[in-house]
Structures are given as C-alpha cells and as structure tokens.
C-alpha cells in the first residue's frame, strides 16, 4: 500500500525533528565516514535508499516520493538521504554482488562504516582500462591477486578496493576481466602515497603481491567484469557531474551557484563590463548543468533513457576550469600568493589545479567525448586493432 505524499512528508519531517542534531562537517571523501553513527540511523529508518525495496534497507518508494525525502533532508542540511542515486559503492554492490556478500557489505556502505577505493588504473592502463595486467588466479576458496595499481584515491584509509583484474589471458581484452571487492588490510597489499600537484597526497600507488580475495567477493560473472565496471563508472561519472570538492581554505566562503558574483563584489570588480560578462557566463554554465540534470532525471523517471545524463561530467569540467580562471582574474596579482594569509588566492590556485580531478579522473574529457559521440549520438567507433585478438598477444607500452 502506498502512502500519500503528505503523510510521507509528515513522517520524514517528524523523524528528522526527533533525530537530527547536526554532525561534524565532512570534507574528505575518503576512508570511514566520521558521520557513520548518524548515517546508520538514516539507513535503519529507510531514508538512505528509499527507492530500494525493504529487503535492502529501502522503502520501495517512487522517484517522486523519494524526492520528497531528499528535499526534507536537504531543508535541514542533514546528509545521508538519496544514496540510491549517489552511493557508487552500494549501488554497484547491490546490482552485482552475491546475496551473502551484499547482506554483509551494503549496510556498511550505506553508513560509511567501511572506507573504499577504486583499483582500476594501472601504469599501462588508464583511458584504456581494458588493458589491465593485474592478475587474479583461482585458488581454493577464492583468488590470489598480483599486480600494480596507480592513482588510487583514498587507498591508505580504505578497507576494500573495487578491483578489476585479468582472469583469462587467452580471450580478447574486454572478455577476460573480473570485478572484485579486494580486502585492503592484508599482507600483500602495500600502499605508497603520491604527492599531487595540489601538494596533497590523496592518491597512491598500490602494490599487490599474492593478496587473497574470498570467493564471495566476486561481483558479476567470472570474466564478466567489464559489464560491472560500466555500472560503477556510470555512477562515478554522474556523481562527478554534480560537482567537486570546494575551496579548501575554509575562509568564510560565498556558497551556491552565484558564489562567483559575491566574490566579484568582494573584489570590487563588479563595475568592469568584461568581468560581468565572464561571471554571468560561468554562473550560467553551472545553472544550465543543474537544469540539464533535473531534466535528465525527469526523463529517466518517465522511463525513457536520457542522453543528457552523460553530459554532466564534461559540463562540470568546463565549469570548474572556467570558474578557477575567473577567480584568478578577479584577484589579479594577488593570485601569485598562497598560504593561510591569502585564502582567496589559495582557493583560486587550488581550484585551478583540482579542476583536473574532474577533467582527467574518472575518464578524461576526451574519453567522455568519445562516449557521448558513440553511445549517445551513435557515431561509429574508431578502429581498435587490439579489440578482437587474445589479450596475451596485445602489444603493451
């Protein structure tokens, strides 16, 4: 029996009024979530993934009803709702993990009780992920894994990595890959931080030497990992299309779509016609991306597939790079500086570098354009000389 929208809104608002008392801000998207006590409450009440069935902590709500829940949470600033759209790990596990593993892992993922990382990229396999050479060999009760991963964000604080590894070398490259949840805290998994252009060290090299994966941690069919990866990548890209980390100075920073306008005012530049045009254009791109996403979700809810969904990440790349350019323009020579005494410059410089997180990470802008051209506009693929030959015979380097 489905309840009325009013009753639902009443229930969620009453629940929030009774339980929501605020949680510490959470800026890092890696490792175990410090808000997990709260997130567990949200999960147990069925608000984390309201579109899912009750068997999986959901409430079987329609898209429109789920939005009522999300709006109620957003209104009070409470995190944790709407994970049936945004939680890459839980969605991938729900879609592809074995039942017993799902029962164990999905609740923990929804409460942020486990830290996660993505073990896809390798030194020889970036854009061309199907070229991975990390190997997983069948042993009693599971698999043994050996290989090297790179650019692995959050690996140091991760409990599991979503891993793609080669399980058959005698078939063409897309057909010999399997997808696993690799337990990270074990002998045979060594994580070495890499210093990033932002002078942070979120991403890492991961050396895997004869590490063990239990049988039930295989997602999807053996050698069917490429398909599972497509699910996971789609969630990752859709989240990246919604935005990225904000400025890191923490200095009371204007927020929202029109933050740039406030910054321009603060910088005393709002009387400059060129500045006004650029500020208007960049804000416009942000607003257009939101309108596109809203339209895509509405179209998806009506059951038609939406081509717009795949545009968000590419749009966000341009927004982030251009926002950083305009912030720099507003500052002029002050942008030469950094450090805590110069928070606006620190932010502009950080954002100008971190924009590459979105334009390179999760598939580069060029790869996104290939995907839009081929999957959305149905333009023919490039000839791929290694697509049909056994992976063993593919030239590497």
């Amino acid at each position: 029996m489905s309840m009325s929208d009013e009753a639902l809104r009443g229930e969620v608002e009453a629940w929030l009024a009774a339980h929501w008392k605020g949680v510490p801000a959470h800026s890092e998207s890696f490792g175990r979530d410090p808000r997990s006590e709260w997130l567990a409450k949200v999960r147990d009440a069925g608000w984390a993934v309201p579109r899912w069935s009750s068997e999986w902590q959901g409430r079987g709500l329609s898209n429109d009803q789920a939005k009522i829940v999300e709006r109620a949470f957003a209104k009070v600033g409470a995190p944790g709702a709407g994970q049936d759209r945004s939680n890459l790990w839980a969605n991938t596990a729900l879609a592809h993990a074995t039942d017993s593993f799902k029962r164990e892992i999905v609740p923990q993922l929804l409460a942020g009780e486990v830290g996660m990382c993505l073990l896809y990229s390798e030194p020889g396999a970036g854009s061309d992920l199907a070229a991975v050479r990390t190997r997983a060999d069948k042993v009693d009760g599971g698999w043994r894994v050996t290989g090297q991963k790179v650019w692995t964000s959050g690996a140091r604080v991760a409990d599991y990595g979503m891993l793609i590894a080669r399980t058959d070398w005698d078939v063409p490259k897309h057909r010999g890959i399997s997808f696993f949840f690799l337990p990270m805290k074990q002998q045979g998994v060594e994580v070495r931080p890499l210093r990033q252009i932002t002078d942070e060290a979120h991403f890492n090299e991961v050396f895997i030497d004869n590490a063990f994966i239990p049988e039930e941690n295989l997602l999807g069919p053996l050698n069917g990992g490429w398909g599972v990866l497509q699910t996971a990548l789609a969630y990752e890209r859709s989240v990246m299309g919604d935005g990225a980390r904000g400025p890191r100075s923490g200095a009371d920073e204007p927020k929202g779509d029109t933050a740039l306008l406030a910054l321009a005012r603060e910088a005393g530049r709002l009387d400059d016609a060129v500045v006004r045009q650029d500020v208007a254009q960049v804000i416009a791109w942000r607003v257009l991306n939101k309108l596109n996403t809203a339209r895509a979700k509405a179209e998806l809810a009506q059951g038609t597939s939406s081509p717009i969904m795949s545009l968000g990440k590419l749009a966000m790349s341009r927004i982030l790079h251009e926002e950083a350019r305009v912030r720099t323009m507003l500052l002029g020579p002050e942008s030469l500086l950094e450090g805590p005494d110069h928070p606006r410059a620190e932010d502009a410089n950080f954002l100008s570098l971190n924009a590459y997180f979105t334009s390179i990470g999760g598939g580069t802008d060029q790869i996104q354009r290939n995907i839009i051209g081929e999957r959305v506009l149905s333009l023919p693929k490039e000839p791929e000389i290694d697509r049909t030959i056994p992976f063993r015979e593919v030239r590497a380097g």
Partner: protein
Amino acid sequence: MTDTLVRPPMSAAALDADDRAALVESVRRLLADRCTEADVRRIMDSESGHDPALWRALADLGVVGLVAPEAAGGAGLGPVELGMVMEEAGAALLPAPLISTALATTLAPDLPGVADGSRIAAVAFAGSHDWTGRSDVRLDGDRLSGTARFVPDAAIADVIVVASDDGVFAVERGDVEVTPLPVFDRTRRMADVAFYGPATRIGDAARVKATRDLGMVALAGEQAGGARRMLEITVAYATDRHQFGRAIGSFQAIKHMAADLLLESESATSAARDAARQLAEDAPTVDAAVALAAFACADAFVRVAKDGVQMHGGIAFTWDHPAHLYLRRARSGAQLFGDSAVWRERYIQALEAQA
C-alpha cells in the same frame, strides 16, 4: 478530418502532459507536410516571404492564436505550450509570423482578426524596449513620429503595434511607411516603419516587459529546436560520409565536436523550457531565467550551426544544402530582442537583484 488543437478544459495551466504531446505531434505533422525544405526555399524566395495558405493551415490548427485569450478567439494557452510549438517551428525553419502574432495578441488581445490569422500584426518595440538601439519613435499627444527599425514581419502586416514606455498603440498599415530591409536571413523578414500620424492607444505600458519576455521565450524555443535539428542533420551526415575508408564521424576531431554540440543544444533546450515554465508560473526568478535562455539559446544555435557547416565540409558551402539556412536563422535570432552580451548583462543584474 483536420487536426484541431486540444482545448484546455479550464485554463491554460490545465493542459496536461498528454495534451501537450498531442499538440506538439499535430504541429510536427503539419510542418512535415507543409513546411518541408522545399517549402521553406519557395517561401524564402518569394516576394513577401509569407505563405498565406500555410498561415491558414496553422490558424486552423489553433497555433496562430495559441496564447491569445479564448475570449478573443485564441486557444488561451501559455508560454510552455508556445515554447514547445516554437521548438518544432525552429526545427523546420518555419517562415511565418508566429512570434509577432504571439506578441501582438498578448499586448492587444482585442485587435480584430489577429488571433484567428485573418489579419497579421507586427510589433515594434520603442523607447527603453527598443532592442535595436536605432529607432527614434516618439509620441506627441496622440501622434507617433519617427522610425522603428528592424520590425519583423512589418511588410506583410495589416496593423503595426507599437510597444513603448508610453503605452501600446496600434496604427493601420495604410497610415505608416514600410521599407522592407534586404535581410541576410530571408526566412525572417524585417522592415523599417516610419510613423507620421495618429495612433490608437490600445493598452498600457505595464504589459510591455512581460510580453517582450514571452517573445524571448518563443525565440529561445525556436533556437533550441533549430540547434537540435541542425545537430541531427550533422550527425547523420557524419555517419554516412566516408573518407580514408571510414565514416568521418569515427574521427575524433569530428566526434568530439559533435559531443560538445550536444552539450550546447541540450543546455539550450533545458534553458528554453525552464524560462517558459518560470514565465508561466510568474516565478520570482523569472528575469534571470529569461535572460539565461536568451543568451544560452542564441549562442548554442549559432555555435551548432557554425560548427555544423565545418563538419560537413564543402557540401555545406553550397546554396542547395540546408546548413546555411540554419546558420542564417541562428544569426538573425542572435540579434532579435538584443544580443547575447546584452542578455548576459541583464542576467547578472537579475542575479544581483536576487542576492
């Protein structure tokens, strides 16, 4: 059986999703039949640039009086439906005075014959609403003087409506001097209109800005529809055309342009529909939404049309290929009601006012 527009049971707001889809479908069918590329070229090459028979067919469908009140013989629909119809019109490059009629029937619903298509009205914006920056229309007592420049559809109009800061006026065609302009986009005719006599006041100035916004929403829909169709034409060509033994669309230089153009044309569509919705609801942020649609749709259509020509190569440099028709239409729309720089400035002003 001829199609007629589904009449809303109560008010404009009552047209539901199914009725809207039916409306769009009936317009699409009519245009597929009566506004083919050959028709567009025939009308474009004609003296007047206007096809009375096509206009009659549009009137019979209820599209001419789409936003005119029912009491005045219109369909009483709103900006959302107008935007949807204009997306179809833009895709087909329909050369017909739809925007002028929407403006006139909003400014002056009682003007006889306009909502049912038997008379055509052109609208000249004057004073602070003059988007050309080149008009000098003045009101002295009950007499208008001066020239309104670049007035769409003026040469085929029976009546000229002047929308100014002093009010809305109507002047019969015989009482003005109309000089057709040698326009680059022959599917959107314009003329200068010189006034030298008495004018009838038919409305007050309060309506003018909202009406201009309605015209902008209509134009934005036309541009979004035009951009999407031009991209479709281009992608189809890139799929068929082979060079170096492969479809040119398999080359990344082409494929990546197409992907970028999809982002532009879909963003234009989102912006046009959002502005139409906000205008229909008279939302508090409507000024920003209209301004955003104005420059996002104009810029998107120009870019899609321009790059679309490039992606076709030499074939699109020929008169006989439709690409230049879209490019011309994109360029004319990008001036109408003010260019993108003007609307970006209005956008940031609207954002400043919201803050």
